[in-house]
């Protein structure tokens, strides 16, 4: 049985709102299930926009974005939100957590929007147990960290809680936008190791953006942004200027 790939982008065009004349195009990008891909490239080359497109937070103006075989580019915004809730876990660079909530509240947050992920775990008590298991797995003591307010945690602890939130309920795709850039090198390596181990356990695919090529040995594949994304300048309505490959 051949499953649809995890992510498949096909002739995707996107224009930034409010900044007419700037846009980006992705001719083709394919990521297999359970594949761990590192996306590298300097800033300003559309990394974050590419992630937002794949996550379905923004919609392209043309082209197809298939995640698990479903074209999220053609979905309505609300359907994209539901799809993201069910199938993706997202970790930001920083400010991942709602500062007033406890670590456990933050980890459980996606489950309120994702009935299937919730169903995989079970009753509320089981959900809390799973959140604690993830915390332990990521090297945090659930008894001391779990009930604490997110704002009281260190940056390293916050990133691990964010990873636990992205992983809970076993989504097929974990998207991480430079999750290690705010961390010290030794904490960074440990964090990445723990996240990769848990991803291997759940069988999720990982798409991680970084400007740090030192991380590449831990991934199945490294994609250079410049190879897949064209940044378009001076795109007026209807006409298309000469595409310029981002470096």
């Amino acid at each position, binding site marked *: 049985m051949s499953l649809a790939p995890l992510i498949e982008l096909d002739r995707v065009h996107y224009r930034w709102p409010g900044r007419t004349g700037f846009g980006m195009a992705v001719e083709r990008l394919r990521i297999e299930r359970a594949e761990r891909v590192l996306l590298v490239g300097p800033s300003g080359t559309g990394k974050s926009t590419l992630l937002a497109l794949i996550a379905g*937070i923004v919609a392209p103006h043309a082209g197809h974005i298939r995640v698990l075989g479903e074209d999220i580019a053609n979905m309505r915004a609300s359907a994209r939100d539901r799809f993201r809730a*069910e199938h993706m876990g997202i970790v930001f660079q920083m400010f*991942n957590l*709602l500062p*007033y909530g406890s670590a456990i509240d933050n980890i459980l947050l996606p489950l309120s929007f994702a009935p299937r992920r919730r169903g995989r775990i079970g009753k509320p008590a089981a959900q809390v147990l799973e959140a604690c298991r993830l915390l332990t797995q990521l090297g945090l003591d659930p008894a001391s960290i779990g009930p604490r307010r997110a704002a009281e945690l260190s940056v390293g602890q916050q990133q691990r809680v964010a990873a636990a939130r992205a992983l809970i309920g076993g989504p097929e795709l974990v998207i991480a936008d430079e999750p290690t850039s705010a961390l010290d090198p030794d904490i960074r390596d440990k964090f990445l190791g723990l996240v990769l181990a848990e991803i291997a356990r759940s069988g999720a695919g990982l798409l991680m953006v970084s400007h740090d090529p030192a991380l590449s040995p831990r991934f199945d594949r490294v994609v250079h942004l410049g190879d897949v994304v064209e940044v378009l300048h001076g795109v007026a309505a209807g006409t298309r200027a000469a595409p310029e490959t981002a470096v």
Partner: protein
Amino acid sequence: MIILRLALKSLANRWLTALLAVASIALSVALLLGVEKVRSGARQSFADTISGTDLIVGARTGGLQLLLYSVFRIGNATNNITWTSYEEIARQPEVAWAVPLSLGDSHRGFRVLGTTRDYFERYRYRRTNGLVFAEGRPFDDLFDAVVGSDVARALRYRVGSPLVIAHGLGSVSFVEHEDKPFRVVGVLAPTGTPVDRTVHVSLAAIEAIHIDWQSGARTPGQTVSADEARKLDLAPKAITAALVGLKSRLAAFKLQRAINDYPREALTAILPGAALQELWGLVGVAETALSAVSWMVVATALLGLATMILTTLNERRREMAILRSVGARPATVIGLLSAEAGLLTLAGVLAGLALTYGGLLVARPLIDRLYGLHLAIDPPTWNEIATLCAIVLAGIVTGLAPAIRAYRLSLADGMTVRM
């Protein structure tokens, strides 16, 4: 639900600013309701002061002025009406009863009203309430006086207290009718009307104290003692005004026209209700200004709320990005933000209601005593409830604007929150 719990925690985290926003809304709502209560209370109080009287008759003057000086003891009469004219009006077949009023003297800041014993029978306030004696009885003897409840309280008068009437209306008078002292024989129960601040004596008594006076001054070398006065003819020659009750209210207009066209003397007859309407027309502008000011205060409070929400917008953009990343729909996130504004406004409105009624409860006796204004403590009218709902709605809309802005920013932010 976890998301609501997080929203409440977020609010609790900003409890001080939230509390201040609630307090400012509460104060503005209390002001709005308070102004409305005082306004309607004043109207009701005025309207309730004179009931059951169909016509008020006085010398030719403005209708409003006649009402004010005859019933509310505000201002002065320009002229008197002769006793003969009064008697002729009282004899008309349509007239059920008539009570003469004679004003112009005072007692330590309180007006003195010369009238007949009928006054205590006929005077009605708050629709059907009649005057009740807290103590004593109506005047009987020439030098008997009946005082209103405020007079009795302020001057510590009881039945049997002596009092001296002053000539004219100043609160400190240098010309007194000290040669003819009166004695309190009755104290009226509180009414919440100008009656409380009035000293009542008989018409004959007014004549008696003025018998040796001419043109507002004592006639030199011609003094009449109190005992001598008793023997004189004390039939009144003129009165200030008269309250008239009719057998049928339908006759009011006809009799009013007849009195206004009275050939022997220039007279004015008014319908109390119509004159009150004239008064409302006059004070309406001030009322409108007052209520406009309180609406502006409400608007200011809502602006304060919007400011409070806007200052947290950066924080909110992060919240928005996080909630969006875990799959919350924009509507959910916008709803959360405006629900917060709505919740704060609702809390403010409820606190404002509590403040208004609490304030009324505390201030009512004071206002009653100081201004003779009897404020009713009624549940909010439908009109007021509608106003309060409109304020809550405005609060929700107030929260909606920053929420939509936060959402727009979150679209531009995508996944990274740039600040």
